[in-house]
């Protein structure tokens, strides 16, 4: 109890005890607690179910939009070109499933500056047959900079479209002479974004990096070779979320 010497403490204690009788009593506390827990669990289950449904719908939507993009890309491809006509005879491979189409890792070496094409450890040999393609558009961040999401957008393409992209890159020269040589501030040298083309091959995933921003370099990088930046191959995969609104070299690219 209170300090014996403290008369006032005893007075406070008496007052508190007297007033405690005014407290509410006889409430069904236990049953309310049970009901709250049940409701909390139901909410959790409902939330989990909602997430599952959303994921399922997202998966189906990704599959459907992949098919739609496939058609759109066919319409975009250069009409009447011999290359396109030849490809029309290639039997269609089954469209990629939603699971296969989400082949973009959340983080990728391309997101780290300075961007070096030598970092491509599994570059694509353009003579290798490809059976699918996932284009992954990434934000490129400066050292020490942090960003919650590095992957800006992705799109999946079937075997025929993937092969069309490879075939469009293969004949390109090492550099596009129509592109200007830019001079820029050191902080603008590195690109703000770039695209990784992830091709499915018999040997696994093989990559081509596409650089179109910054002012140091532009083109298609396979790790062993560089192909100049031209509009034709870009049109085949730069669709939807993978189509950048701008880029230093894109802005100056003839035919883009």
């Amino acid at each position, binding site marked *: *109890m209170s300090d014996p010497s403290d008369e006032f403490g005893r007075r406070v204690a008496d*007052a508190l005890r007297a007033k*405690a009788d*005014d*407290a509410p009593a006889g409430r069904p*506390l*236990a049953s*309310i*607690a*049970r009901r709250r827990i049940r409701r909390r669990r139901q909410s959790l289950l409902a939330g989990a179910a909602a997430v599952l449904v959303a994921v399922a719908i997202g998966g189906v939507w990704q599959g459907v939009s992949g098919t739609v993009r496939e058609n759109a890309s066919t319409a975009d491809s250069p009409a009447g070109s011999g290359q396109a006509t030849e490809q029309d005879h290639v039997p269609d491979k089954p469209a990629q499933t939603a699971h296969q189409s989400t082949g973009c890792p959340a983080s990728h070496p391309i997101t780290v500056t300075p961007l070096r094409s030598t970092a491509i450890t599994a570059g694509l040999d353009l003579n290798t047959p490809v059976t699918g393609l996932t284009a992954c558009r990434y934000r490129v961040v400066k050292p020490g900079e942090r960003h919650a999401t590095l992957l800006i957008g992705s799109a999946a393409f079937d075997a025929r479209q993937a092969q069309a992209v490879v075939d469009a890159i293969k004949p390109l020269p090492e550099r596009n002479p129509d592109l200007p040589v830019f001079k820029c501030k050191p902080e603008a040298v590195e690109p703000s974004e770039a695209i990784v083309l992830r091709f499915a091959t018999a040997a696994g995933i093989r990559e081509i990096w596409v650089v179109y921003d910054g002012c140091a370099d532009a083109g298609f990088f396979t790790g062993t070779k560089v192909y100049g930046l031209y509009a034709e191959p870009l049109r085949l995969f730069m669709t939807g979320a993978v189509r950048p609104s701008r880029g230093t070299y894109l802005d100056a690219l003839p035919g883009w």
Partner: protein
Amino acid sequence: MEAAVALPETGSESPVFETWVLIHGDALLRFAYVLTGDANLAEDAVQDALTTACAKWSRIGAVDDPEAYVRRMIVNAHISWWRRFRRRESPSAEPIGANRAAPATSDGAAQRADADAVWALCATLPSKQRAAVVLRFYEDLSYAEIGRLLNCAEATARSSVHRALAALKVKLSKEGAEDV
């Protein structure tokens, strides 16, 4: 979860939650009421604490003194309310209703009037000080125990109680002088 309602008390193991609440519920409500000074806040605090306790009852029910554990949860809930609403809750300079205590016409009425006055003054204390006073004089806890409960040093708990008492004394004497 529902099956637990029908289960008998398990002796040495944790008591059935419903039985335990039936025995201790009203005491917890009284404690929460003295702590918060408000019937609704008291019910909310007890209900929140019991809901949490119910979810972990297999563990809480098995400890030596589940009641102390739940009381601690109530105190924590009260202090966190204070933190959440401290901008809205500020001790008033003049206790509301303290001067409206019933006139002392007999011994019982005088005690009642005194209780009302002290109660109204307690409402003007900051929540942490009030909690310290309640734990000291209503719960008969030592300063060390109060310090542990309020997450502060024993000396801090002691000074909280003494400061609160000093403030109450000053206000009571001031009111006594005004009544004359």
